[in-house]
């Protein structure tokens, strides 16, 4: 039985797609057959971040509408075994997502895959609702700033009331926090919320803290999930988060500023 994960946040630009690409890749690297679906109809991005934009022929919406078979739309990742991408349509809008259509595709995918990762669009409208409706697990992507935290709180409320599990009175969707773009130095200076501040408001378990890193933008631009960049803190942090998701006990790192030598501290002070 496959597990359905939704990567969601409410707010835009916090790193849902980056995290979806990294997370799906991480699951596949650990041997799970994984598919990542782009629910951001009309604003197709996942294929770019996954580096498969030039191989998209049919998409998720074509499959929903019965215009293509699922196998025609699924793109197999060239780097990693077990990893597939289901891109979305750039020309349609979110109204193309029907509950029956999404359910049909998810049912078909669940016969084959261990994990189905749904990359949610921003907002709390149709696209986001459809991406979270069938979820078993939710990963809430949040930046350490107040508006992102508030929107995440909102989406948690939506998960608790409008998901399939909520509507049918089943066991609730499990919820975990992925705190992205975390800059320990700016936190130290009081310019960003601390991990604890965010956890106090959202009151859900912490899956991981992804440090702010130039590697993320670099990876996106070349279409490589950042988790494959093993030299970067962000990549390592995503790898840790995937491990924790699978139940491993891994200590959080990158949450405090790196110790600086006397020389660089002196430089900073004079700057």
């Amino acid at each position, binding site marked *: 039985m496959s597990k359905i994960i939704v990567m969601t946040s409410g707010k835009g630009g916090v790193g849902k797609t980056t995290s979806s690409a990294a997370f799906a890749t991480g699951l596949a690297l650990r041997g799970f057959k994984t598919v990542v679906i782009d629910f951001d109809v009309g604003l197709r991005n996942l294929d770019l971040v996954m580096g498969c934009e030039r191989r998209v022929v049919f998409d998720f919406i074509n499959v929903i509408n019965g215009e293509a078979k699922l196998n025609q739309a699924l793109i197999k990742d060239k780097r990693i075994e077990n990893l597939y991408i289901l891109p979305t349509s750039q020309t349609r809008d979110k109204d193309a997502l029907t509950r029956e259509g999404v359910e049909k595709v998810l049912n078909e995918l669940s016969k084959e895959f261990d994990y189905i990762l749904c990359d949610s669009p921003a907002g709390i409208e149709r696209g986001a609702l459809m991406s979270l409706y069938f979820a078993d697990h939710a990963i809430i992507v949040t930046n350490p700033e107040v508006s992102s935290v508030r929107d995440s709180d909102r989406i948690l409320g939506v998960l*608790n009331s409008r998901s399939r599990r909520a509507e049918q009175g089943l066991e609730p969707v499990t919820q975990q926090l992925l705190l992205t773009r975390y800059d320990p130095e700016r936190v130290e200076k009081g310019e960003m919320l601390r991990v604890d501040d965010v956890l106090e408001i959202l009151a859900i378990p912490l899956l991981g803290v992804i440090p702010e890193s130039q590697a993320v933008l670099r990876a996106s631009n070349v279409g490589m999930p950042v988790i494959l960049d093993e030299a970067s803190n962000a990549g390592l942090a995503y790898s840790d988060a995937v491990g924790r998701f699978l139940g491993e006990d891994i200590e959080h790192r990158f949450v405090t500023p790196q110790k600086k030598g006397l020389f660089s501290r002196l430089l900073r002070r004079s700057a």
Partner: protein
Amino acid sequence: MSSASQVAERDVPFQLRGNSFTMMVLKVFAPTSPEFFTQLNVKVRQAPNFFRNAPVVLDFDDLPESIVFDLAAFVAQVQAQHLLPVGFQGGPQPVREAAAAAGLTPMPSGRAAKLEEVVKAPDPRQPGAQGQAPIPAPQVLVEVVHRPTLVVTEPVRSGMRVYAEKTDLIVTSSVSPGAELLADGNIHVYGALRGRALAGFSGDAKARIFCHSLEAEVLSVAGNYRVSEDISSDFYKKAVQVFLRDGVLSMDLLKTA
């Protein structure tokens, strides 16, 4: 074949429940006035859909003791206006008797009387007025006495709205910024209160808000509100109760021994 009692246990043919209904009261000042029904007709015509077959309670409280009129004919004329007289309240003894004889239910008048009627179980041995059948106790008011408090154990998230209608609200976890708590009675929050809390939502000036950590965006009791900007920092993140003191929204620290 199963016995009657077994049948009754398995699928009960009825259920007794308390409920409260909103009804119009037709205050009768001069039932014999020739103008009465022409004027009533004018009123009813202003909103025919609203009044059509609306149940009404006839209020005879303001009738003089000496009044004499044909109550049955009066009720028939009210019905002709497509109003449904279902009960009556007050009035001189002969009018009350005539109304009961016409099949109208005596309604308790006034709020104080209501509660008293409900609290005191009707004594079946007490004879009804003038030896007539005892007046049936008003069952419709049971609910007024106690409505269960609404208890919320999950965090109240941004954008969520919880309304405790005609009762108190207890939240055992935190209330996020952008969430809204409404209660016709009191509000208790045992986590941090970071959203809005509006107690006495239907106007009860005696309602209060109690919270363990006051970080609210808006506090209101019976429409008297205060936004977080106007809340003294002395109360921030403290255990506080909020209430109306002489009509002004006031706050006190809760003493935790």
